[in-house]
């Protein structure tokens, strides 16, 4: 490889950005989280009081529990959905390209528009889901307007958007050597046995990747929750709580402490999953 210093000049913009937009803000975040700062007025150093308050606050546990419950259900559900859809799409049929485009659509359309559309799709009276249920004589729930049905509403959206990782599964499926299936055929394995004993083990690296991304995504969930909310505060995910503390109530110190706690949670989960890797991820 060529010259030493030249390379350093090329990465310089990133290094400056790292200092300006990551390292300095992190140091400031460390300080702010120990003050009672609220934008106006001066900040007072309060030590670990913000962190103490977090663990005494009912809202912290409530929003964390909503987020954790969502993550526990949404992550496996989306992984399973994307995996199954990918197996179906991994066939050389005519028009398969059109199907792929359709299934991939939810992955790139996101944001407020989709959240609003789902609010309307899930409308208890005039929405399309309850109308379909009514055709089968089922009296549909009030979805986002019923505290018990808020989480299922979010799960429906998650499964619909499960194709976020679809392309990764498709690429992974393409990389599985034909010979593995051929020898399974020789052993007389049926379709489900092949999925269980060839496809699944070979796909564990992809599942692992999507699991980490899914968990991080679940803990950072904001847009849908901010737009849709949900009855009885059941749509108040952790990030919405953090956002409100910071930008609605200007409790900058407390909100920054919340951000650190989120950081530690995500970091811990990522480390745990990484450790678990050697027990179930095929290499």
């Amino acid at each position: 490889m060529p010259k030493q210093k030249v390379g350093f000049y090329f990465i310089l913009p990133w290094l400056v950005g790292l200092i300006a937009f990551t390292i300095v803000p992190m140091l400031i975040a460390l300080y702010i989280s120990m003050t009672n700062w609220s934008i106006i007025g001066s900040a007072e150093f309060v030590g670990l009081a913000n962190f103490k308050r977090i663990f005494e606050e009912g809202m912290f546990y409530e929003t964390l529990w909503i987020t954790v419950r969502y993550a526990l259900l949404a992550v496996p559900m989306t992984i399973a959905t994307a995996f199954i859809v990918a197996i179906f799409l991994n066939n050389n049929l005519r028009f398969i390209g059109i199907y792929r485009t359709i299934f991939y659509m939810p992955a790139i359309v996101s944001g407020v528009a989709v959240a609003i559309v789902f609010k309307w799709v899930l409308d208890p009276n005039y929405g399309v889901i309850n109308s379909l249920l009514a055709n089968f004589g089922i009296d549909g729930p009030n979805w986002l307007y019923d505290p018990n049905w808020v989480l299922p509403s979010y799960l429906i959206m998650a499964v619909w958007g499960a194709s976020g990782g679809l392309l990764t599964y498709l690429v992974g499926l393409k990389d599985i050597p034909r010979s593995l299936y051929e020898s399974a055929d020789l052993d007389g394995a049926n379709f489900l046995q092949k999925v269980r004993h060839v496809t699944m083990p070979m796909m564990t690296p992809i599942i692992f990747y999507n699991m980490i991304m899914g968990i991080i995504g679940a803990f950072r969930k904001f847009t849908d929750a901010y737009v849709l909310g949900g009855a009885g505060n059941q749509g108040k995910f952790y990030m919405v709580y953090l956002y409100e503390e910071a930008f609605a109530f200007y409790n900058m110190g407390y909100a920054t402490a919340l951000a650190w706690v989120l950081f530690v949670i995500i970091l811990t989960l990522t480390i745990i999953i990484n450790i678990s890797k050697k027990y179930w991820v095929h290499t």
Partner: protein
Amino acid sequence: MNSNSRKVRINKAILYLVLSLGSVLMLLPFFWMISTALKPDNAIFTVPIQWFPQTLYLNNFIRAMEVVPIMRYMFNTFLIAALKIFGEVFVSALVAYGFARFNFKYKNILFMVLLATMMLPYEVTMIPTFIIWSRLGFADSYVPLILPAYFGSASFIFFLRMYFQTYPKELEESALIDGASYLQIFIRIFVPLSKAALMTIGMWSFMGTWNDLLGQLIYINSPEKYTIQLGLASFSNMTGETLWGPLMAASFIALIPVILILLFAQRYFTEGVKMSGIKG
């Protein structure tokens, strides 16, 4: 032989059936959005619902634009996205080139740091960064949304570095003999060679801007500076009875650019996943 080909045909039929059913479910929200956008109020609020609009009622689009200046918001978002894309793509490529094609002191440590920042949740730095920008007098402006892009993006750098590493060493060697500088080699050889990868990144950058709510929510206050996400969010949060017809019309307009990208540039997404080599 005969029974075998019959089995294949039945399998195919089942596949098509399942895929078609799945597609219907995938498209249902879009269908319902468009159907509602094209119906007058008295056809929207009916039980049982009216699946297809009876007439082509375009008034919802006009009503939507009367309530919120959607075109203005679209323009604002395009402006931010355009200013951001250039910096994010070019600088990320520059940095990736540095990491991929040179050896220098602390390179590996610095690259580990880069990887670490990819995992770092943006939320931790969100509040301090907001405070810094406000202190500098850039609150309620697009600067905090655009300028950081000009320092590169960790995930884009990571992706492009892998791409640049695949080229043979001889690529620069012959150019160096011809007296080209490294910057010239980057611009004249690496950029043209990597068009597909740069396109992929450009698209990710655009989608990131188009679909972002949190960042825009924090920095932008004046309604005339709203982006499409902020405009839609404020439209849906308006008090009083929800104007579902106009709201669906507005949502439809907001999704058009993204859907166009999907239809015409899908191969770049696939390319991106193939290249990112996430297979552990």
